[in-house]
């Protein structure tokens, strides 16, 4: 039990996917302008990662390994992810049309969100057990959502701040990211 807790906390705070591995930067830069769409995006990402991790994990060990088709992992995984994203997109369009509109192009782009593919691949390369895989693939997107949310609150303020012309938009946002990365290194001794 303790092992799962450590894995959970370290995946959220210490080895935060965005601040230490730089994955998922595109949606962070793109959807972080409003707090509400940041949370919606976060929820969608948690769901997609969890779902596609379970799927790919089962597929890998029950289909690919017995047939010694391990080298097909990348193609299988990306197809599962693409299908899952399509599914989430349809569900959102039906039940939360406002959020669907707010996320716009970034919703289908979850397919190319590196975090999703990263988690499914790491589940295999790190040899996680089924339970570890479940914990890890919930914790990582939660860490992603945490950074996305904090970042969007800062960014709402940033819009009205006087910024040198060349730094307007993304460069200043990256400076903010650098400061956040520096702050998150303080969590290093936590576990």
């Amino acid at each position, binding site marked *: 039990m303790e092992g799962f807790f450590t894995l959970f906390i370290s995946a959220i705070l210490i080895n935060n996917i965005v601040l230490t591995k730089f994955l998922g930067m595109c949606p962070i830069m793109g959807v972080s302008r409003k707090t509400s769409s940041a949370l919606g995006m976060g929820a969608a990402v948690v769901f997609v990662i969890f779902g596609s991790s379970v799927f790919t994990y089962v597929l890998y060990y029950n289909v690919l390994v017995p047939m010694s088709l391990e*080298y097909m992992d990348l193609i299988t995984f*990306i*197809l599962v992810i693409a299908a899952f994203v399509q599914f989430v997109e349809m569900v959102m369009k039906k039940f939360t049309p406002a959020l669907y509109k707010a996320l716009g192009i970034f919703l289908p782009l979850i397919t190319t969100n590196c975090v999703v593919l990263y988690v499914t691949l790491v589940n295999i390369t790190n040899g996680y057990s089924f339970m570890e895989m479940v914990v890890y693939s919930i914790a990582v997107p939660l860490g992603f959502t945490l950074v996305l949310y904090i970042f969007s609150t800062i960014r709402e303020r940033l819009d009205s701040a006087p910024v040198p012309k060349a730094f307007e938009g993304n460069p200043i946002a990256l400076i903010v990211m650098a400061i956040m990365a520096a702050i998150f290194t303080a969590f290093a001794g936590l576990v």
Partner: protein
Amino acid sequence: MKSLVNYGMSLLKENPVFGLYLGLCSSLAITTNLDNAVGMGISVLLVLTVSNVVISLLRKLTPDEIRIPVYIVVIATLVKAVELLIKAYAPAIDAALGVFIPLIVVNCIILGRAEAFASKNGVVSSALDGLNMGVSYTLSIVALSLIRQLLATGILNMNNPFNDTVIFDITIIPADFTIPMFSSPIGAFLTFALLAAGVAAINNRDQKKVKGA
């Protein structure tokens, strides 16, 4: 000479990394040293060019509704091929880049060019577009890694990934004056932000010139 300068300027203006913020993840993550940046750059260049060619060849056969899955399958196949080649011939690169090689699949530059260019243009111009974008991606991440490696370690070096021999190894900044922070994520974000701001400043200046004329 002039065409070279023009080419350089177009690399800056339509730069996929600093101008459009595509392929951010890999350009931040693997630019801690030159070896990694060159290895990554060449892998992306290869995948991008070949995927542009293949997608351009398939463009008349691909139904519009399922084009994205088709592109992704093409790209994933090519990336897997590159990954296996790197594992076989350049294990040093494989060890250093690790999971970031399979993650080329989700590098937005590749899918972006497939959708924006290769799906609408002929084979030759798609190949050229892939080469062009690949070169400017490679140059951008090499620039990032040069700055980060120099400031963090004070040493500039490169190894031949195929047989682990040293190509060059120069110490420029004495060890007492290096800033190790630049090899950490903080340094990655900072260096990227400053370079991107530099590119934006050059573009702003040019736009003013155009308006003034």
